[in-house]
Structure formats: C-alpha cells, structure tokens
C-alpha cells in the first residue's frame, strides 16, 4: 500500500505504508538521532508531531518493552527512508501509527530546514492530495498550543518509594528515563499531574519539572506554580521544564524555525568551557541571553541551554540529561542534583 505526506505548502512526498492504514495530522519535524527510534516515538514531547528520521534505516534492531519512554506512542506518524521490519513495523501497526517508508527524507529535511517545521498530513492508503493539504492548513500552528494536559498523568502516583530524598516530578509529558535516572541516583520519586498545586509540591525535598510537548507560553498556570515554588524548594527543569522556569524567571521563549531534535547537539558549559554532546528534542527555546544565570549555551544557535539561580536553588537544562536516546554525557546533572537535594535536606 502506498501513502504520502502533504505539507501545508502543497509539497508532497510519496512512500509505502508500512504500518497502520489511515491518516495522521500534525507538525512535520525531523530528528537526526541515529538510534533510539522506539524511545523517540514514545517520547510524549513528540505529541501531535509527524516524525521524520534522518537515519537512513529505521527498525534494524527490533523493539523491546523496556525501551519505551511512556505507556504509548505519542508521535502521530513516522516517516522513513527505509523501514526495517517486521518487529518495528508490527509494533507501529499495533499502536495504530501511520508510517511511511521509501520517503525522500533528505529532501523533506532540507525543505523543513529552509522553510521551518510545517503543518502536514500523512495519508496511508488512498486519499486526495488537495484534501490533505487543506486539512494540513486547517490545523492550528504549534505556536501557542498547550499540550501538556493531553499527555500528563491524570493523578499523582509513586514511581519509587525508597530513597534518601523525596523528589516530586511534575509531569508535563515526562520520559521514563528521567524517573529512572532520579531513582537510580537514590531519590524516592512521586509523579504529579501538570496542574499540581505549589503547596503540594513544596512538601518534597526537590521538584523536577519534566519535559513535554507544545509551546510553553500558554502554560500560564504552570508558570505561576513554578514562580511560587522559586526559592522555596530546590528545582530542576528539563526541556519544557527549563522553558517554564525561564518564563517564571522573566526570560523569553520563542518558536525555533525547525527545532533541535537529535543526539549530537553540542552545548557549551560556560563556567568550565566544556562541551556536552547532548540529546535534544524541542521546538521552542529560551532566547539567547548574556545574563549571568544562563549557564549553558547552544553552540548551534546560541539559545540558552541552561539556567541557574543559586539563591533560589533552581536550575534547568534545555537538553535531555537523562538521554534515552542519546549520549550519557549529561547524566551527572541529574545525579548531582539529587545529591544536593539530599544534602540540603540533611543540613
């Protein structure tokens, strides 16, 4: 069965359908990570997106339950130059994901790079191109969209109850790797919905603001909660969590033309001059800033990759120190934060 991707500007890419029949609407984006396809598709930050892999062959090493970053697939569709099955394509099929193989992914990437991420429709099976383009244009832009509530947990739950310190995670679309790293570092972890109240969170030794999909700007209530927490409890923000902390502290966020998605993005740690090779997945970013609190900067476009407010005991990173997928270079960020939180509690 054939299929196609139609972009809002009318460009069409054709391929073969290798998973669910039907269609998917979302924002077309690409990731340059060469491994970790299952992790990527199950990362809640990819909600409402059609993910194109620049990796030439996807599905080589099959699937495994432990690799999923959440309970389900969040990407709406998967676009590949060459899909390898059957394990991977079956897995996509079972989850109702539309997936195309044989796509000229490089042309698609160059298009998105030059024109920016676009609204798009993927059709697996028959369908009218004109109609698809129309549908693509009819959907709202990612800018201004609050999506955390769609992927967050509905009620709090305990991820791990043993540990030397108690950490609350606010789930805006949290990846399992974050929870795993926290627990691995010795934290007892409780996960809260995106709209958890500040006083509830303040009862913990530390609060981690998780990653998540969409635009941070419309999340005004979440930002207000973060502002309330500031200075009252140690905070670590990751990705969307970083953007929320930035907004709470008066920084600006904006929509990147086509985002940073991959496992090779260099980030400069200003204090040490060291470079971290990081995993990234964000369509919005904190605007470049010379402020002293901007501890990390993208060597790619100078957007703020890390913030630190020592007095408030709050810090954040735009990239994904938990990896999954990607390099483990930044693992210590989570580990050290847990250490600090535990130390502060003891003191």
């Amino acid at each position: 069965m054939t299929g196609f991707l139609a972009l809002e500007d009318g460009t069409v890419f054709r391929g073969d359908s290798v998973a669910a029949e039907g269609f998917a609407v979302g924002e077309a984006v690409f990731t340059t990570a060469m491994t970790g396809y299952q992790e990527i598709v199950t990362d809640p930050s990819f909600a409402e997106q059609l993910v194109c892999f620049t990796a030439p062959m996807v599905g080589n090493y099959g699937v495994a339950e432990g690799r999923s970053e959440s309970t389900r697939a969040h990407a709406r569709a998967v676009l590949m130059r060459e899909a390898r099955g059957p394990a991977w394509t079956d897995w996509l099929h079972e989850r109702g994901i539309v997936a195309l193989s044989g796509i000229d992914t490089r042309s698609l990437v160059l298009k998105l790079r030059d024109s920016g991420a676009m609204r798009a429709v993927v059709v697996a099976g028959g369908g009218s191109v004109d109609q698809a383009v129309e549908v693509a244009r009819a959907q709202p832009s990612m800018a201004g969209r609050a999506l955390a509530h769609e992927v967050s947990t509905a009620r709090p739950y305990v991820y791990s109850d043993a540990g030397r310190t108690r950490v609350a995670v606010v789930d805006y679309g949290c990846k399992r790797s974050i929870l795993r790293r926290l627990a691995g570092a010795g934290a007892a972890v409780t996960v809260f919905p995106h709209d958890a109240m500040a006083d509830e969170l303040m009862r913990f030794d530390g609060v981690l603001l998780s990653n998540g999909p969409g635009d941070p700007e419309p999340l005004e209530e979440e930002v207000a909660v973060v502002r309330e927490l500031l200075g009252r409890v140690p905070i670590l923000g990751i990705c969307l969590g970083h953007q929320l902390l930035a907004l709470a502290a008066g920084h600006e966020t904006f929509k990147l033309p086509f985002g940073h998605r991959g496992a090779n993005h260099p980030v400069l740690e200003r204090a040490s001059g060291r470079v971290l090779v990081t995993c990234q997945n964000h369509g919005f970013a904190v605007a470049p800033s010379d402020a002293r609190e901007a501890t990390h900067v993208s060597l790619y476009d100078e957007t703020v990759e890390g913030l630190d407010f020592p007095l408030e005991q709050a810090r954040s990173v735009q990239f994904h120190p938990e990896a999954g997928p990607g390099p483990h270079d930044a693992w210590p960020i989570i580990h050290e934060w847990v250490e600090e939180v535990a130390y502060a509690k003891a003191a």
Partner: protein
Amino acid sequence: MPRRHDLESICLIGSGPIVIGQACEFDYAGCQALKVLREDGFRTIVVNSNPATIMTDPGFADRTYLEPLDLEGVTDVLARERPDALLPTMGGQTALNLARELALEGVLEELGVELIGAPLDVIQRAEDRELFRTAVREVGLQVPGSRIVTSLDELGGVSLPAVIRPAFTLGGHGGGFVETVDQLHRQVERGLDESPIRQVLVEESVRGWDEFELEVVRDRKDNVVIVCSIENIDPMGVHTGDSVTVAPQMTLSDHAYQELRDAAAAVVRAVGVECGGSNIQFARERDTGELRVIEMNPRVSRSSALASKATGYPIAKVAAKLAVGYTLDEIPNDLTGTTPASFEPTLDYVVVKFPRFAFEKFPGADTTLGTQMKSVGEAMGIGRTFLEAFRKARRSRELDGSETWELAESAHPWFHVELANELQELSLDDLVADDFVRLKRSGWSDAELAIASGTTDDAVRARRRSCGVRPSYRRVDSCAGEVEAASTYYYSTWGEADETPPHGEKPRVVILGSGPNRIGQGIEFDYCCVHAAQSFRRLGYEAVMVNCNPETVSTDYDTSDRLYFEPLGLEEVLSICEREKPEGVAIQFGGQTPLKLARGLEAAGYRIIGTPFDAVDVAEDRERFGALLDRLGVRCPEWGIARTETEARAIAERIGYPILIRPSYVLGGRAMRVCYSGDDLGPIKSPVLIDRFIESAIEIDVDAVSDGRDTYVGAVMQHVEEAGVHSGDSACVLPAPSLAPAQDAEIRLIVRTLAQALGVVGLINVQLAVVEENIYVLEANPRASRTVPFASKATGVNLVDAACRVMAGARLSELALSQGQSLGHVSVKAAVLPFARFPGADPVLGPEMRATGEVMASAADLPTAFAKAERAAGRPLPTGGTAFLSVRDADKQAVVKVAGTLAELGFKLVATAGTAQTLAAAGLDVEHVRKVTEEGTGPTVVDLIRRGRCKLVINTPHGSGARTDGYLIREAALVARVPCITTLSGAAAAVHAIANARSEESLSLQELQERIVHETRAA
C-alpha cells in the same frame, strides 16, 4: 584554549612506504595536518621516505626530508632542523614507534623537542599490553584475558575457548583456536616447538563476537566527541582491515550503542589521550552484551581515514589542531562552515567498505583470513541503504573475477537477512520505471542487471534512461541536512531529488581516479590525480574528482572543486559526466582503471582531454604498436600473439627462447612469466603476447611529457635488477649510471619520436632494454606511470603539472621547464615487498609485480643513495658478519666477483655445495653448509639463518615453489629478517653499496631543488 604560542616549528613523521596495513591513509592524514599547521603559521618539517606521497611535495611543508624512517634518519633531521615539537600521530604505527624510540633513547630530550599529540606515557599505555590492560581495568572494563606460556605445566586455569599465538613465527604459524583441554595441550605443544624462543601467548577467544570500532576525538578540556561508529560484518577473528565494515553501526540499540560510547570515552581518558584522535576496537558478545576492549590506537588510523570519508569529519585536521592547543569548540567543521568540531557527525546514508586482496600474486600463500591483515587496498561505497552501499563498494573493487566474498555464518543475523536476496532472472522489456528505481535503490548496477537479463550494459542503460530513471546526487555534510553546508562532497542514489549546484562559469574537467589500491596500481596514481586536480584548478577549470578509495588524498573533499565518491564504472562515470558536462575527461592519471572506460566515454560523446584514446589503443594493441615501431624504424623484441599452445610453440620457436608471456591490458605484470623452454609453456587459454625475453639487458624507464609536437624527457631511469624482474619490484636509479652519452641521446630521441607518432598530449612512459649497441622498446604507455612521483621529486620538475598544462592547450615551449637534474646527485627508488604476510608464497622477485610500496633516497653518489634506500625499505645492508650464497648455475661465474668483494670487506663466506665449489675454485675462502634436503650431519643453512648466524643471504632461484631448498632458505631469511637478495644484479648493487657508501648529511627536498635551479641557471 587557543593555539599554543610557545611552539613555532613542528616536525611531522610520515608512515614510509606503503605496506599491508599502512597505506595512503597516512598521506591523507599528513597532508591535512600540514595544511592546518601551516595555516596557523607554524614552520613545518616533514620526514617520510615515500616519494609517492603528496605530503612530501615540496610545497606542503617548509622542509621535506625523504629520509629513512629509522632512529638514525629522523635523529639527523631533528638535529639539523631543531623543531620545537614532534607530531607522531599522523604517520601510523611507524611514526608512533619511532617517536617512542626517540623518546626512550633520550634524543628528544637532548634536542629539546616536545612530543605533541601523544606524549610518551600515552604511547606506552596504549602499546604495552600490560599497561593497557591495567588502564582498562581501572575504569571497570575488560580486555581479553591472556598469559604467556613457556611450558605445558603453565596451563592450569586457562579459560576456553582460547587462541594460541606462538611468538616470532611467520603469519602466526603454529597457532590456532582451541576449544577443549586436549586441543589446548596439543596446540600449545606445537606452538612451543614452532616458536624460536619457545614461547606462546594463550588468549581468551572472542572469536565470533561482534566487532565494533569507535573513532574518538578528545581535547585538553576533556571534551570527547565520537566521530563515527564502524561495525565489522565479519565478526571477531578476521582483522578489521580484511573485514567488510559498515558505518554507522547497524545492529545495536541506542542503549547498547551508548554503552560502547561510554566505554570508548572511558578508555581514551584512562590511556590519557589528551589532544587528538583515537580508534578503539571492541568485541561484544551478541546475547549477553559483554564487552572486551581489543585495542586502542592513540593516533589517526586506517579506520579514522575511513571514518573521515564516511562522515566528512576531518579527523586528522582536527587532531592536528588539538595537538597545538585548540579545543573542540574552537575548531570549525569546514564541511558545514557553521558548526564546531564538537558537533558529532550524524549520517543520513550508509557507508560500506570492502577490502581488496591480491592472493593471485602469491601462489601457495594461505588465503584464510585471520588476525593478520592481508588485504592490499579497499573501496568504499555510499548509499542511502545498506544494500545500496554494500553493492557499490563490492563492485568498486574492480575485480577480475577471482575474488569471492561470502557472508560468515557467524555474522549478525541482520546482515543475513539484508543479503538474503540475490538478483533473479529479469526480462528487460518488462521493466518499468518503478522496477528500475527499486532495483537501483537496492544497489544493482546496469552491468549486474545486464547479466540477470541476458543482455548488455548498454541495452540496460538505454532502457533505464528511456524510463526516465537517472541517479541523483546527495551531499555528504556530516549533519544529515540539519544545517546548511557548503560541502562539495557527493554520492549518487536513486529516486530522490538532486543536490548538485547549478553550473558556474568555469569549464570543468572530470578526473578519473585509480580506485582501490592494488599491487601495481596504488598511491603513485593517486598522487598524479591529486596533482592533476591542483593543476587544472590553477588553470581556471573546476576539477571534478571521481574515486572510491577512502584512503586517498584525492578523495579529500578539499582536493577538488567537487568530489563524487562513486565506483569507477562506466555507468557511474557517464552519469557524472551527464551532470557535469565537462570540457574534458582526464583518463591518463588514474592508472589502468580510467583507460577501461575511455572507449565508452568517447562513444557517448565526451571528450578525452589530452592524449586521445586511440593512442592508448595503439600502444596497447601489439599489432598496431608493432606496425608503428616498424614504420618509425624503432626496434622491439621479436614477438607474436598466440591463442593456443600450438601457436605459442610455433612463435617461440620462430623468435627463440627464452620468451615472456603475458596478456595485454595489464598493470603490474599480472600473470606474466618467463619460459626458458617449451616445457615451461603450460596451457594457453586466452590470447597472449609472446615477446623474446632479452636477458642481461639494462632496463630503462623513461617518463616524459609531450604536447603532440615537442616532448620533454623528464627522467631516464635505470633499473637495478635485470630484465625479467618487474619494473615495479626493481630498484631504480636516476640518473642512469650505465648509459653512455650516445645511448642516453638515442633513448631520448626514441621517446620523442614515439610520443609524437602516438600523438601524446600529456604523459608518456616508455620502457626500454639496452643490450650492447642495441636499444629495444619494450613498451610505451601514454599515461602516468608509477615512477612519475619519484622522477618529479628527484628532478624538481612537476611532470603532472606540465602534462595538465599541455592538455589544457599550452605548448611545451611556453612552460620553460628546466632540464632538472642535479649533477653529482643520485636518487634511488627501492621497492618494498609484502612477503612476510604471505607464508607459503615464494619470496623471490620475478616478472609478476608484488611490491606494495616504494622508498626514495638521494645522495651524492650511487652506493650511498642505494644503501640509504635499502635502509629506508627496512633492509639495512650489513657491514660485516657471515654472508650466505647459493646461486643457480647460470649465475655461478658472476657470483665470484660479488663474493670476492664481500670477502675483501671482511665477510665470512658460507655457501651450499655447488656455489661453494665455484668460489673455492676461484680461490675464495668459503665454508660449505648443507641444504635441508642434503644428507649429512651438522646444521643446515636454514638452521644457520634461523639462529641469526647469517647477516646477508644471496640466493638466486633455480625454480620456485614451496618445497624447494631455495624456498626454505628464503623463507628462513624472511622470518629472521635477514636481507635476502634473489637476483645477481641486485646482489652486485648491494655489495657495491656496502663497500662504498659514505655517511652524508641529509638534505631537504627544498634545498636539493634550489640546488638544481641554481645549477640550471649556471649552465
């Protein structure tokens, strides 16, 4: 951290001659390093004995020394130049070993030279098995367990399976793989017997484990970047150089890959590499994920060259910058221009590397692949899928059909699934556009489709094109398109959009490269292609390079205006020409490979720039060439063409034995042999050329450039070994020492006449034989030859540049080339042979070329230059001790003089019966020693050699073959690393050199060439 300002001058050591395991990749690395160091204002000094390298071109460094890469040679240069630092990480294991020796001997300290890139302690930790094991264990990783055993009592607690490696045996002879205690005991016993020092290494076996390599770069701030992962399709047990490899790795999950990444970074830190590139090899058990660190090279390597070409990330360039103080965030990635070197490459294509072997040249040699590398070259294919890349690489090897490759049973199942489908029978007429796209996307060439459909390449091509199916070209940009890149590095794929830029104003020349290295066609031709690119660019053309050899400088994207990394097949080259619409295609620089495409290119309407293809055809077609020589009144050995054995006999009888038999259109003397009588003829299957074999002639090699009217004779070189030894294996001297002025003048006249008659516009190489008054033309090749780099360096005239200028329309008279030859200066080129890699094959010189590389040395006189060249080739001539002689009857009289000189020099003479008798009869004091096959008591000659009692072996063969006495003698010499000379002319030259060589201060190429210019002016 910016560049170090306490350093002003840096010396770089090259890797010397091309040998198996160390090829052009270090020229590529050296060139990149020199380029960036000079850009940064450093004074650069380079030492390398290999004249065919680009890095030893006078323009590449401030001072270039073609000196032997041994302690003495490099110490001389360092003492003369007094550099602030030595960079040893660009010249392979040779340079690293030398640096270690220089440091341990105290030379560096004495001269105040700092080791940069890899300090001594790092080299020690990476190279010393024990230190490495300790360093690796300290970071929680493991190396395969091993222990040294000298008796069977020491085998308690050895874990099985294991590998037994006897110490100091050729090709690991006597070693093996064992699974049971019984096998262990038997194999160790055998290994102890085989080992001259009764020592074996018993090592934990990881055979069959998956093998991965990671290319890592680290800077002074401890930033680590993984440039590339490479997966070996052949699992552990086959040397990575002999393995088909793929990048990026295909079979590991993110979790497993990140584990490897972490381990690689940990090893680099543990060994302490602070500023440079390293290669780390891992074995990984597929099911348990257990890891073993196999080895680590704290330098650029063959794999790093492959990784650079695979990703576009210039590892050597970055490593050189790191060595002088920069950090990764400060170095721009020049493929993208916008991202820093700390941006790890990400690929949106797949790269496969295929090795190329040369077993057909070494009959008798064991062709089983193991832990010792045996391949002589490699080809790389780039495609959007594994299969596309795999099949491109596979056909890039340009085989004659003899080499097969089978996927190992134990290879990862993923590869078995990918490679499960072979091409089914096709009906060309039934194929539509979609079918073609599907087949091409799977990597099938037009030629392969032609075979499957029982038709011709042309028919397939015509049908495919009529369906509108043409390749598109994609950029290699190191970032999968994420940032806009100015890259000019392309590969083809199918069914996608094209990325090549629109045509500019400048005319274009497509330069066809020489493909994978093989014996007979190696770095010399790449040297010519690189120079051609440089020259055409200077002349206002856009140089477009086509090649598929990842080791080379020609496939550095910096070399040309556009690089197409593609197989050198007619299909691919036609497509590139269609895209580029060149003013001309240069076919004369890449050896035989481009010539095979010339006819097809002309037929498609593309112009061959320079010498027309018809001239090549005249030179190659013996009947046309013979007629031409007759017309010109130029003599050649009598000849004939035979299609059957009967015809061959008739011709042989007409022209008289001995005769030389060979197929036409060959390079490197493939299947060439000398027959002394009808008994040697053997079966004749395809048409062969039969020439009268001229014995005891002086062989002459001439390189010249012609503009079609005038001819500039660049070099008249004389071979040291007699006719019958392939020119590529023979040492060669410039100027020719044995030619009388009249002979020299006649040779030049013949070359001029021939070049004009053939219509040569560009390079021509002529081989001649001189017997007393007669000069015979053996062959003429209107293209670049193997000796062009040597001749250019020795004379200071860049012959390729001159060729390009006349190809572009200049007249020779406009070039004002100097008659570049320094009086009182002799240059010698010596061949380097790979016999030690091929136990079982007879290490004797013959008409079939077997050399992998060459060295050059210059001095004020021939003996000094010759002795130095032998030193550079790794065969230093002895100055005393025992010389063993055993020659065939034909050489018996001539050997007396050689032996006499040796005796006068104080050598003790030992010989086998026949030779001893001759020498004794001539009044020489000689001791008789028995052959292995000779009855008697006391040690045999092989015992003497093995025990290191002989310093020189002179042994000319009676016949060759694995079981003759001669073979046993030569093999023993090879194992004991004793110089073994197999021709009498070679022996005479060596003995002359031992007697007359003087010590002489080394001179840089720049100084030598200044001297030539000065002398030319004076004249």
